[in-house]
């Protein structure tokens, strides 16, 4: 472990946080573009510094904890959300040589584990707020995220089977000739849907569901504690997009351009796709979301595992 550059450990979270903050601006501008309006365009060139202005504003807001809340857990919840997302980035190989522990032999499991812990942020926030809207949001979050983690894990099995490794670096290397999105198109689809549900983004933003629950699990949050949820959500989008890139789109590999740029390009495209979804789709109902998960995604991911296994066995035999 000693060969991990200290610089990478310090820089990665900072860069991710900066990107997540920037992403709030990118999203608003893109939504503006797609919704025939401007979006924030006043602060700095093209409104670029809007994210900074928002950051300053939110930092200086009163740090308020509602008197009826369970204080310790109320403070803990956003921290968990932020920590788990940032830790996950440790295992992502941004290029062949960097990333903090991109070659971790259980990298994929580590990230899944972190995501599993991330559920606690939302559930605890909903619980500790001691408010009805937050509770409903927390309830939805618990059911939704725990269910979708099942399909996410299953959908990844196909990738692991082909690559023969949980090491994300190895998985990328295994895609040198063919991106996994082709042989694993089913798995990719399930993973993408589960990823949206994990980051609770529209159309799967039921834990927040502003039209129904006000702000859902973070109704009672304000100031920087709300900011942490907010940034963690955007960091989560970057995380899922990075994972999609790593697992299905060949990671940093690509001709001509430098590896880091390839990674950035692919990840950004997926992020923009996420934002486009938000601009386009309505939100299904809670039970419809669960039905989609257990009745469609689960069989699909099992089918994917079976099919992949069969093909691999036939190939090994032949």
């Amino acid at each position: 472990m000693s060969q991990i550059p200290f610089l990478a450990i310090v820089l990665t979270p900072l860069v991710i946080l900066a990107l997540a903050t920037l992403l709030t601006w990118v999203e608003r501008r893109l939504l503006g573009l797609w919704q025939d309006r401007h979006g924030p365009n006043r602060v700095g060139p093209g409104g670029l510094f809007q994210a900074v202005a928002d950051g300053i504003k939110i930092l200086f807001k009163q740090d308020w904890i509602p008197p009826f809340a369970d204080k310790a857990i109320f403070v803990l919840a956003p921290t968990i959300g932020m920590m788990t997302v940032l830790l996950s980035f440790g295992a992502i190989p941004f290029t062949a040589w960097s990333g903090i522990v991109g070659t971790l032999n259980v990298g994929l499991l580590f990230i899944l584990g972190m995501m599993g812990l991330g559920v606690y942020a939302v559930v605890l926030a909903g619980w500790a707020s001691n408010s009805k809207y937050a509770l409903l949001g927390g309830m939805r979050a618990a059911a939704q995220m725990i269910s979708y983690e099942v399909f996410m894990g299953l959908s990844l099995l196909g990738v692991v089977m082909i690559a023969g490794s949980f090491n994300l670096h190895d998985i990328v290397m295994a895609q040198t000739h063919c991106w996994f999105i082709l042989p694993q198109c089913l798995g990719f689809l399930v993973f993408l849907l589960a990823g949206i549900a994990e980051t609770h983004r529209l159309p799967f933003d039921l834990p927040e569901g502003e039209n129904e629950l006000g702000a859902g699990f973070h109704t009672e949050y304000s100031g920087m504690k709300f900011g942490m949820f907010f940034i963690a959500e955007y960091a989560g989008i970057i995380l899922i997009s990075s994972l999609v890139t790593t697992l299905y789109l060949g990671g940093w590999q690509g001709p001509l351009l430098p590896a880091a740029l390839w990674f950035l390009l692919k990840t950004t495209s997926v992020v923009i796709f996420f934002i486009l979804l938000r601009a386009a789709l309505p939100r299904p109902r809670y039970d419809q979301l669960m039905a989609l998960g257990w009745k469609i995604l689960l069989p699909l991911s099992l089918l994917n595992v079976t099919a992949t296994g069969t093909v691999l066995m036939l190939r090994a035999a032949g």
Partner: protein
Amino acid sequence: MSATVLSDRPPPHSLLENIAAQNLPPSGPTADVTRDNVAVVWISAATIRATLQMLKDHAQGHLMLFDLTAIDERERIHREGQPSSSFTVVYHLMSLDSRADEVRIKVALTDHAPSLPSISDIWPNANWYEREIWDLFGIHFDRHPFLRRILTPPTWTDHPLRKDHHARATEKPPYSLTEDQEKYEQNALSFDPSLWGMKRHSDHSDFMFLNLGPNHPSVHGVFRIVLQLEGERIVDAVPDIGFHHRGAEKMGERQSWHTYIPYTDRVDYLGGVMNNFPYVMAVETLAGITVPPRAQMIRVMLAELFRIASHLVFYGTMAQDVGQLSPVFYMFTDREKVFSIIEAICGFRMHPAWFRIGGVAMDLPTGWDGLIRTFLDYLPKRLDEYDAMVMRNPIFRARTQGIGAYTKAEAIEWGVTGPGLRACGLEWDYRKYAPYACYDQLDFDIPTGRNGDCYDRIVVHIEEIRQSLRIIRQCLEHMPSGPVKADHPLTTPPPKARTMHDIETLIHHFINVSWGPVIPPGEARACVEATKGLNSYSLISDGGTTSYRTRIRTPSFAHLQMIPLLSRGTMIADLIAIVGSIDFVMADVDR
């Protein structure tokens, strides 16, 4: 409404004959006909329930309790031929089959503590109307299931629409709040489920009570629904209204006939001049003014533009309510285009108050036709795109199809009108049923749905936008020439051209501008197919410069009453879709 259209009506009867056939003691029904040619029948309080029940049974489900209201008669001078009473309760019945079958049944109440039997078991929509009468007039309804204040706060002590109640705070000593009063007021706000007719637990679990509103992103204004929840499933829902109550009806008794027009704009605040329409028509009926054809067509055109504007807001917010973020922006852009036309014509966007007694404020500006033609060519393409984006979206369909459905019979029971009624498959539109203004000369279809669910209500709204475009195009092509205001001494503001030529005109002009017109005594009601359903103004003139009683019957009030019926057993998310699909604004509910 021009007098000619009204006199074409067949003499009103089969309902009347039914009442007459009953031959009820002591006096039997006395029928008189008001200026709007709707028959009025006086019935005693003792027989009102039996009469209404009989009428309803006889009509086989096609009789709607259109309106139920009261009049404080104690200061009224012109009551020729009417039984004496301190209060009169008016049951306005409307048969959907035939225009002739419209009748106002009046009950005279002379007691100091007036009371009547409740009819909320005969027509369920009487429930809120009776509460409203109790709240505003202090008339008690015996055996009413839940006779509590509905528009004023629970701690209110008076009945505001009584003539002895002050109309303005300046008529009272300055308001002060002692600590005890403050405690009392705050206690009155605390929530006790049993007071709302809800239980705290079932056999095996505790219910959760959730206050949806008065401030909530999806209740379209200040509206509160108290939900009794088991998990996310709604066991019961109790709507609480009145947060937007501004006393529009009371204001009508203070403002002159002319200066009340801007207040009407703000009742259904998405409907703009659509609200002026029934009001000025009712005043014109009272005054006997015939509106010239050009003014009629301008009115219709403006009203239809506002229908489009209102429906676009509905469409966008409906999509937003089920989580689709973008459509509302596109539709507000389109609405802005409607507003730019309205602004070019009226000089105002949302509340132009542009209709006048006897016509409209001004003639159309030069170039109006070009603006409208551009818009007529622009919108249909956009609507096609929205169909693809919203109506054909599978998630949107899953959220709205089969949700919040009611049948034709239920709709009539609950007094549902407008798109909500047509979505059940009933081809019923007031513009066809009783064509006012120049609707009889215009060609348009009545869109209907089939299932009466959220989705069908949206479909009907969208098709109505297309039909409105059709109507506007006909107005554009056939706009008659001529004056835009009737040549009548009671039109307001009165014609000024000759004021400097003869003293008589000058005096009339001076009086009509400074005091406002004096409208001859009488009662009249005018009704329009407004953006959200039937909107009607019943005016009583006592021969003065203000109305003696202004009754505003709004569609949203009736529609909101159905929420408990529609939401029981659904999820919170469904309730949001249902609330969105009803298409109401709170100002239209509370007035």
